[in-house]
């Protein structure tokens, strides 16, 4: 009876990226107390090697797509796309962390181990094909993220960030889990496809209302994880208090994974009740865009500004979800990839400029950066222009495809309001550009350190990614379009 539970070797190979990351992260834990301080950079190097290996494995296992572990995991195009995105986010987070951890005199082994564990969780989330596995991935990813947010233990803001993130995050996962419990009670299954068949089959009798309740509860949990309004309150405080590379990671990796499961659950299991949840997503998308953009207008702290901007960007992706179409799914996938590049790049510049103890975090501190370090300023300009959505950058095509998908699904008002929102957003990004190029250098720009090789890579790679997605969007979009059919 249980013999069918033994996984075949093909199934184990489909799990290879997660295996690589888990083994290396566990090795870090064992090595950390043994190795001394002089080998503090070893972990970073091995993190990058492990992440590259995992990315190669993720691409390799896509040659033989299919289910694994009794259908709990599903390696398809959709999962592979998001696996590559979250692992890529990991690489782009490790690169600026070398300098950051040296500067703040923090331990490196635990940091990289936690980062890898968090990415393992996200990989599990995006490949999971049923609710319990999604929940386990969500927890692995979240618990490591909570610790990373408070990684600088002596910093009061970091403590506050970690505590807020932990408490609100636990509440959100509880909501999600309650939804899972209701679904299991109603349909007798946690497998997404089976749940969908049960809803379609109409064998639920007098209980379809509970399916709606379950969808609403999961919406609360996932809305928190993607920092969509009205569940966004934690984001500014957490991004401000967390170490800057961690804030970059939080705004890209866990968010991309959360959107992946958002799409998978709502477009697979809850597809039959789509007309029911569409207004919820509609309102949440509009609220996130408006609240994020207008709150960002008045921010003086750059990390809070980027946090509100990330809430607004979550709103754009929710527009793609509200479209409830394959085009919308593909647009959301493309947007998450483009957003990961541009946002991590922007955060890497912030990390570089802020100096020891993150002293320089005001928007005014960017004054004169264009004169003092033209290369850094030019790269930041690319990221900001992409965040605005200027053509030739990934951000432009991301927004373009999202609003095109929304129009295709006749969400005219949401599109109009979204486009107006993008116009508002231009103001606060341009303010930073004006600071950099049209003001005399201030204290922060004068004291800026030269770029280290790690930081240089952390700035140039996302810039390249942003431009490649902006000039040749076709390849990524084709893949996203072909993969989006798996989420149906």
């Amino acid at each position, binding site marked *: *009876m*249980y*013999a069918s*539970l*033994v996984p075949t070797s093909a199934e184990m190979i489909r799990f290879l990226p997660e295996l690589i990351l888990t083994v290396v992260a*566990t090795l870090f*834990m*064992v090595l*950390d*107390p*043994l190795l001394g*301080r002089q080998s503090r950079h070893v972990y970073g190097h091995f993190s990058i090697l492990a992440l590259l290996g995992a990315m190669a494995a993720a691409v390799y296992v896509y040659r033989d797509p299919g289910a694994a572990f009794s259908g709990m995991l599903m390696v398809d195009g959709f999962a592979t796309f998001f696996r590559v995105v979250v692992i890529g986010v990991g690489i782009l987070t490790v690169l600026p962390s070398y300098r950051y951890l040296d500067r703040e*005199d923090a*331990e490196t082994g635990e940091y990289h181990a936690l980062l890898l564990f968090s990415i393992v969780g996200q990989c599990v989330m995006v490949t999971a094909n049923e609710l319990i596995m999604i929940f386990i991935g969500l927890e692995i990813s979240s618990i490591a993220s909570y610790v990373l947010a408070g990684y600088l233990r*002596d910093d009061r803001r970091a403590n506050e960030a970690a505590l807020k993130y932990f408490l609100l995050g636990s509440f959100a996962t509880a909501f999600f889990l309650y939804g899972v419990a209701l679904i299991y009670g109603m349909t007798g299954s946690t497998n997404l496809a089976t749940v969908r068949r049960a809803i379609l089959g109409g064998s639920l*009798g*007098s*209980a379809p209302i509970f399916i709606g309740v379950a969808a609403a509860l999961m919406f609360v949990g996932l809305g928190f994880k993607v920092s969509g309004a009205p569940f966004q309150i934690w984001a500014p405080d957490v991004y401000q208090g967390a170490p800057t590379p961690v804030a970059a990671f939080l705004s890209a990796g866990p968010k991309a994974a959360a959107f992946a499961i958002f799409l998978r659950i709502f477009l697979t299991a809850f597809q039959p009740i789509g007309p029911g949840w569409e207004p919820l997503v509609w309102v949440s998308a509009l609220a996130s865009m408006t609240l994020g953009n207008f709150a960002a207008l008045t921010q003086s702290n750059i990390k809070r500004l980027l946090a509100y901007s990330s809430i607004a960007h979550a709103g754009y992706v929710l527009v793609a979800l509200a479209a409830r179409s394959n085009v919308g799914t593909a647009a959301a996938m493309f947007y998450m990839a483009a957003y990961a590049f541009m946002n991590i790049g922007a955060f890497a510049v912030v990390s570089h400029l802020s100096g020891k103890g993150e002293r320089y975090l005001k928007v005014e501190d960017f004054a004169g950066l264009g004169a003092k370090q033209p290369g850094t300023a030019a790269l930041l300009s690319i990221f900001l222009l992409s965040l605005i959505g200027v053509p030739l950058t990934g951000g432009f095509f991301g927004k373009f495809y999202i609003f095109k998908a929304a129009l295709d699904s006749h969400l005219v008002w949401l599109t109009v309001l979204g486009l107006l929102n993008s116009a508002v957003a231009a103001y606060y990004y341009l303010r930073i550009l004006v600071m950099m190029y049209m003001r005399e250098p201030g204290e922060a720009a004068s004291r800026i350190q030269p770029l280290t090789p790690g930081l240089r890579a952390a700035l140039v790679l996302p810039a390249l990614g942003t431009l490649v997605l902006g000039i040749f969007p076709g390849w990524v979009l084709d893949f996203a379009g072909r993969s989006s059919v798996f989420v149906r």
Partner: protein
Amino acid sequence: MPTSYAETYFPVLLQAVIAMAVAAGMLGASYLLGKRVRNRVKDMPYECGIEPTGSARERFSVKFYLVGMLFILFDIEAIFLYPWAVVYRELKMFAFLEMLVFIVLILSGFFYIWKKGALDWGETGERRFRKP
């Protein structure tokens, strides 16, 4: 065979009502029938029969919480052994290898907290925890 939703869950409701009735009955009966003696000794906090000493609101070393947390972690992990033992015969070598992997993971966690000094009670542990 119960047909409607209400019928399916009626036993649950019944159980909840009985549970509440039992609890209310016990409390009510002791309230009505019990003999109440109030004096100084009765009002003292119960400490296993010993006379209470000092206030209960003292500051504890954070080590208590750390050890308590670690204990719960490892305790919960040990529970996995029970379902595993039930299906061990059917899964044979696979189950053995899987549990081996699991134990290795636990042991590496144990090694980590030990070496990091989380279990040391004295000065050495604190020093190792501090930044170098």
